[in-house]
């Protein structure tokens, strides 16, 4: 949306209105303090510095040579691969506990994507065409689960699995059930946005040409939805890897705790640069997934003669 819609007040190049006569107001107030001024520019850059520099420092700390969390003492990979000849514990890729946790993170993300994305796509497609009171109630419930603080859903699921549906054991199965519940709305919202922009002409044309509804969806609508499906896969994957609230309540034995929960518990007990390495790894893996999803999205969307920039993606997700 960035470049299609003309933005900005009168262009910054225009005189700032100082030459106009206006009564009362002193000159410095007449000059718009909000427009093209260094104040706004400074606030914006200040915000970006504040929001991004800490992250960069945290990444650098994960390559720290010393044990300090707070200052850089030379460069080493000891928190990633372990010090040569040193203790395998305390580094991301050699510590067996963290290794298990890393695999668990990937397993959960994979399972959540496999279940949540098809459910979400079906829900979005069905709800987009089904008229009446029932679908709008379903939509309301879905949105409610989306905006509710995660702790409410997580604790409610914990109570259900502990005291009502006791056959679901806390651990991987409970984690997957909980994560899918939290992630369905993400997939629905991404796909729904795309459905609304596609409209219904294509499948109607297909059906005019003799296709059954199922054929029209399989051959026409789903291919049109591929970009959104790619985007929602990336989104659900990244969000699952990052999630620690739901998973923390629903994890059982220590082996079922993914990396995010290990980091959270580690921070509570004794923060160390190893946790920075783990968090950096999480960040890199979700960035890779998001970038892949974005490229797939762009590729698939461009194949259909549409163009989306970064802003287009922001509009979608």
């Amino acid at each position, binding site marked *: 949306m960035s470049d299609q819609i003309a933005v900005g007040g009168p262009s910054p190049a225009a005189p700032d209105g100082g030459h106009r006569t206006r009564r009362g107001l002193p000159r410095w107030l007449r000059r718009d303090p909000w427009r093209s001024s260094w104040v706004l520019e400074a*606030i914006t850059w200040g915000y970006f510095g504040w929001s991004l520099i800490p992250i960069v420092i945290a990444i650098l700390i994960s390559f720290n040579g010393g044990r300090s969390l707070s*200052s850089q003492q030379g460069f080493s990979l000891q928190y990633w691969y372990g010090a040569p000849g040193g203790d395998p514990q305390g580094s991301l890729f050699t510590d067996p506990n963290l290794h298990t946790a890393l695999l668990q993170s990937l397993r959960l993300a994979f399972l959540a994507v496999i279940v949540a994305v098809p459910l979400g796509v079906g829900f979005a497609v069905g709800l987009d065409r089904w008229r009446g009171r029932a679908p709008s109630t379903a939509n309301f419930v879905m949105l*409610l689960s989306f905006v509710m*603080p995660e702790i409410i859903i997580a604790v409610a699921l914990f109570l259900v699995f502990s005291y009502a549906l006791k056959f679901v054991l806390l651990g991987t199965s409970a984690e997957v059930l909980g994560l899918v519940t939290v992630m369905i709305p993400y997939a629905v919202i991404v796909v729904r946005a795309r459905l609304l922009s596609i409209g219904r002409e294509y499948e109607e044309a297909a059906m005019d040409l003799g296709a059954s509804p199922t054929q029209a969806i399989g051959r026409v609508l789903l291919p049109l939805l591929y970009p959104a499906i790619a985007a929602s896969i990336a989104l659900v994957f990244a969000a699952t890897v990052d999630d620690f609230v739901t998973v923390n309540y629903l994890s059982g034995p220590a082996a079922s705790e993914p990396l995010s929960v290990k980091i959270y518990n580690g921070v509570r007990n004794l923060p160390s640069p190893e946790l920075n390495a783990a968090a950096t790894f999480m960040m890199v893996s979700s960035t890779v997934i998001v970038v892949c999803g974005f490229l797939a999205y762009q590729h698939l969307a461009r194949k259909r003669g549409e163009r989306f920039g970064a802003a287009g993606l922001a509009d979608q997700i």
Partner: protein
Amino acid sequence: MREPGAAKLTPRRSPGRRPEARPATFQSRLYWPTWAAPAIVWLAILFVLPLYTVLAIAFGTVDFLQNPLPVWEPWFWTAHYLTGVAHQIVGPGSYLGPVYIRTFVYVGLATLICFYVAYPVAYHIARCKGRRKKAFLVLLLIPFWISYLMRMLAWIGLLQNDGYVNRVLLFLHLVPHRVGWLQGRPITVILGLVYGNIPYMILPLYGFLDRIDQHLLEAAKDLGASPFRSFLRVTLPLSKPAILAGGVIVTLPMFGDYYTNVMLSGSPHTTMIGNVLDNAVENTGQGPYAAVFVLILMLLLLLPLAYYLRSTRRTMEAR
């Protein structure tokens, strides 16, 4: 990576303004419901049922081991635990009352700070052009795919006693000695909440400010308003819905927040509602209280939730 703004940014065109095009082609009226059914069943069992279980436990009883026994029939419910907790919130010598007040103060302050930072940034970016704007947007989106844990971890490093924050402040002679930022300081928790949630406010604000009709501003200018005055009288009032929506988007997760507090403070002096709930779940034998705390949290959030869902629906219908 939640994108609460998404619900508002979605639709370009509204479907089905006209009647169903050709009902005859659909073999059955159940065709579309079948597509949505799996997810509906899923949400019914794993979202609606759990919420009902919260009620059944909050108004239920316990067995001899203090494990909750959910009572499913509403006519057998007892408000025993609810009144117990209510006494702890408002009664004399209550220990939960201050926690609730503190939560409201922290969340209120954090939301205000979010607004005062987010609005100018969103406004500025909405009025940039071309490559500059694209670059700003990319910078704006980066925090969305960095996990909350990573962002808090970053501050834990910076706020250590010998961390960069203390070093800079000492260097500038702003503090006389090193400050223990992580030892239960309200300011740390509030700024942590701001840091964690502000991206969710900037994005919807930007989305809205970007779409404000420029003709309105030109009209204000033609009518003799100074730029500042036209900002105050046109842009700001126009963006009221976006401000409210952004406020709700950041407020909801803050009320359910316990992790920021645990990671950045860990002291009982900064305990919030979320921490009380978290503790009740972690300690065995507190099941009914956990359910009651969830219930109270849901009741507290009912109003902002209803507002947000209603405004979302309205924007969906308006487009």
